[in-house]
């Protein structure tokens, strides 16, 4: 028995027990320590709000980043899940917190989409601190599909409307389908499923002509020859799918994916913002963080506060255009 194992085991037991027994992980007292000045930030624990339930991709990325940031900041980062209403519950909650750096959040790609979907949310409402990951989208078809390249698929879809599954209405993978149709003139009928896995299952079961999803949902079935991946919507090939050409390589210039970053209520003190930005950047360079992100089929893509802010705003504009609003 190696000591680290025993330690993590004890941690696991202790934390899981406390969660199961009293479930108080989420109860935070949000009274800011009035006396602490911004120069000795952080002087107490930081709460990181996640818009999804525990166990999903957003949660996993957030927890990995939080544990990489803790030694850098020297304080604990408490991950708090506030799922619901397409993530808007968490985003509105973050907006309402004091801008003191003790409440930050995981900003998923939806933060740029919700504004076009009747929510009062925009990236410009927040201080965007840095992008931490990107999960590029792919298009897959059944193994015995007549289409072998993105071009063949697009050409066929110009004459007959083809069906494409995605992870849900208003999801980033529905946007991927809209983008492809918008850029090529292909007629693609969006069939929203309840999550990425059922969407890919629909391709495996040949219920639909194609599916838009993330890399992880297709990787193993691609290796086992159960489906074909026509293209990846990213600037370069994915290390996990080296044989899958990018859409750009095939003459369709689309990049789309589910990204994530860290944000905070607007108006952080400059000193605090700088500390957080630096800690986020350093955390994304840690191996422990990189391992979690890459092994779940995503890429570690870092953008600093300014770049991320511009990027999120550009994305919001692009989605608004696609959704015709």
């Amino acid at each position, binding site marked *: *028995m190696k000591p*680290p*194992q*025993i330690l*993590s*085991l004890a*941690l*696991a*037991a202790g*934390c*899981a*027990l406390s*969660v*199961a*027994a*009293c*479930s108080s*992980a*989420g109860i935070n007292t949000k009274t800011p320590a009035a006396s602490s000045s911004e120069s000795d930030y952080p002087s107490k624990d930081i709460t990181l709000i996640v818009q999804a*339930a*525990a*166990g999903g991709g957003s949660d*996993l990325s957030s*927890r990995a980043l939080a544990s990489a940031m803790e030694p850098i900041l020297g304080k604990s980062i408490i991950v*708090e*899940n506030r799922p*619901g*209403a*397409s993530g*808007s*519950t968490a985003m*509105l909650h973050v907006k309402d917190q004091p801008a003191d750096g003790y409440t930050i959040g995981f900003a998923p790609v939806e933060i740029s989409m919700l504004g076009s*979907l*009747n929510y009062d949310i925009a990236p410009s409402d927040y201080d965007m601190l840095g992008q931490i990951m990107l999960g590029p989208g792919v298009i897959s078809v059944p193994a015995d599909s007549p289409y072998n390249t993105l071009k063949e698929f697009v050409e066929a879809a110009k004459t007959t409307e083809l*069906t494409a599954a995605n992870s*849900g*209405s*208003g999801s980033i993978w529905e946007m991927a389908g809209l983008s492809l149709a918008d850029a090529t003139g292909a007629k693609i009928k969006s*069939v*929203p499923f*309840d*999550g990425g*896995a*059922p969407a890919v*299952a*629909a391709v*495996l*079961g040949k*219920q639909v002509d194609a599916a838009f999803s993330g890399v992880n949902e297709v*990787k*193993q*079935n691609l*290796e*086992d020859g*159960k489906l074909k991946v026509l293209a990846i919507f990213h600037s370069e090939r994915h290390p996990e799918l080296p044989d899958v050409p990018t859409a750009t390589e095939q003459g369709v210039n689309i990049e789309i994916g589910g990204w994530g970053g860290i944000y905070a209520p607007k108006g952080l003190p400059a000193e605090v913002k700088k500390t957080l930005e630096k800690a986020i950047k350093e955390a994304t360079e840690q191996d422990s963080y990189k*391992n*979690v992100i890459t*092994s*779940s*089929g995503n890429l570690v893509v870092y953008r600093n506060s300014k770049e991320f802010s511009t990027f999120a705003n550009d994305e919001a504009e692009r989605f608004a255009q696609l959704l015709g609003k």
Partner: protein
Amino acid sequence: MNAIIDGLSALFEPIALLCFVIGLGLGLLVGIFPGITISMAVALATSFTLTLEPAQGLAMLLAIYVSAQYGDRIPSILLNTPGTPAAVATTLDGYPMAKKGQAGLALSISAIATTVGILMSMIVLMFFAQPIAQFALNFGPFEMFALVSFGLTVIISISTQSLAKGIFAGLLGITFGMVGLDPITGDPRFVFGTNELTSGLHFIAIIIGLFGITEVLDQILTYRRDKTHVITSLGRWWPTKSEMRQVAKPMALSGALGALIGVIPAAGGDIAGLIGWNRAKAISKKPEEFGKGSIEGLVGSDTASASTLGGALTTTLSLGIPGDSVMAVMIGSMIIWGIQPGPSLFERRPDIVVIIIAVMLLATLASTIISLVRTRAMTRLLDLPPQLIWGIIIVFCIVGTYSTTNNILTVIQMLVFGLLGLLLRRIGVPAGPVVLGFLLGPLAESNLRRAMLIGPPTEFITRPISLILLICTVAGLVWPTIARQLKQHKAAL
């Protein structure tokens, strides 16, 4: 053979065994505690097991998965409050049995049924994983709609008192299910301009409200100091031989059904339990006892919901598609351990498959023993003064519900459903069909509309699985009426 030795030797190391024991204990706690779902517990444990070896992590996560199946039956039977959604159907006959003074017997039978269910489904996983998983892929939107329609006919048999009231309850559930975003267009429906309701009404809040809170409120309002306490811990706790014979048939049928339902990605233990209960009633010689404390009913629900475990694992491991919400979380951590579930897993990592099967079997065995041993102690709980029990249930319900979203509005929803449940109970409307309608209504709608997007409606009858299921649905609707006519006809002769 090497794979078996490798797998088992990784599992029988001190740390892995310790993980297993911790998982077992956690699972039992999580199950008993209403509101904390198994997927939530597994998700939170995952953030710590990621740093462990796969065998150690799997030992802990799967032990939680299995032992929670035993824990969640306890509050269903003793307090009419499902510990997790999978134990909703357990309340139908489990609680009436406890009321009759058979709490001990109900707990033992439930544990036995759960064990048989898991073991049956593990046989499916061990021997037929590949063909069955491939079969599950045939369940597209057309087939799913037909299956869900069939599931909705359960409302008829679940309405033991009055069919009209049962159908009303079912429609109420379906209506509640419509709140939120339209599954295809994403437009908000019945959200009254609020953000909170766009994710729909909260399932955990509904079941805890309708069952737990309603029960407590009802007991408080009807409590008379001089009246003797209705539920007592008296009674046998071990079934007789004739009872064992009586439940053998529903056990086998529900177990097989549950395993099949578990294989289908969108359906889990909650739906399986209700359908299993319904099928057990259909083949029973004493259907009139169902809902009033029938051991066959209890066996029907618990075997079916437990046997979704092996089914869900089958889909997860051999297709790489999560078979239920717990498996969705588990796939995440398996991938980080470098184990990619999918069609070739059985050839690529047989040692992992061995570990999974071994943990499932060991956890089942250990949970059964623990459950049977502590049955007596558990029933003592009922000897506590009712005021104390009410307080405990209310605290548990509120804390449990809050923990699902960290949002006080979810707790308010639960309390509203508690009051609504009380109102429904007073006018004789059963809560079971409300839950069923809420679960199945949205599934029926989204699959129907997906099907209409994909192909012409004629495919409902040209696809064989869909056709068979729709015929079963119609038969399920019409048959009770025909049967009644025939009976009257015979009586008249």
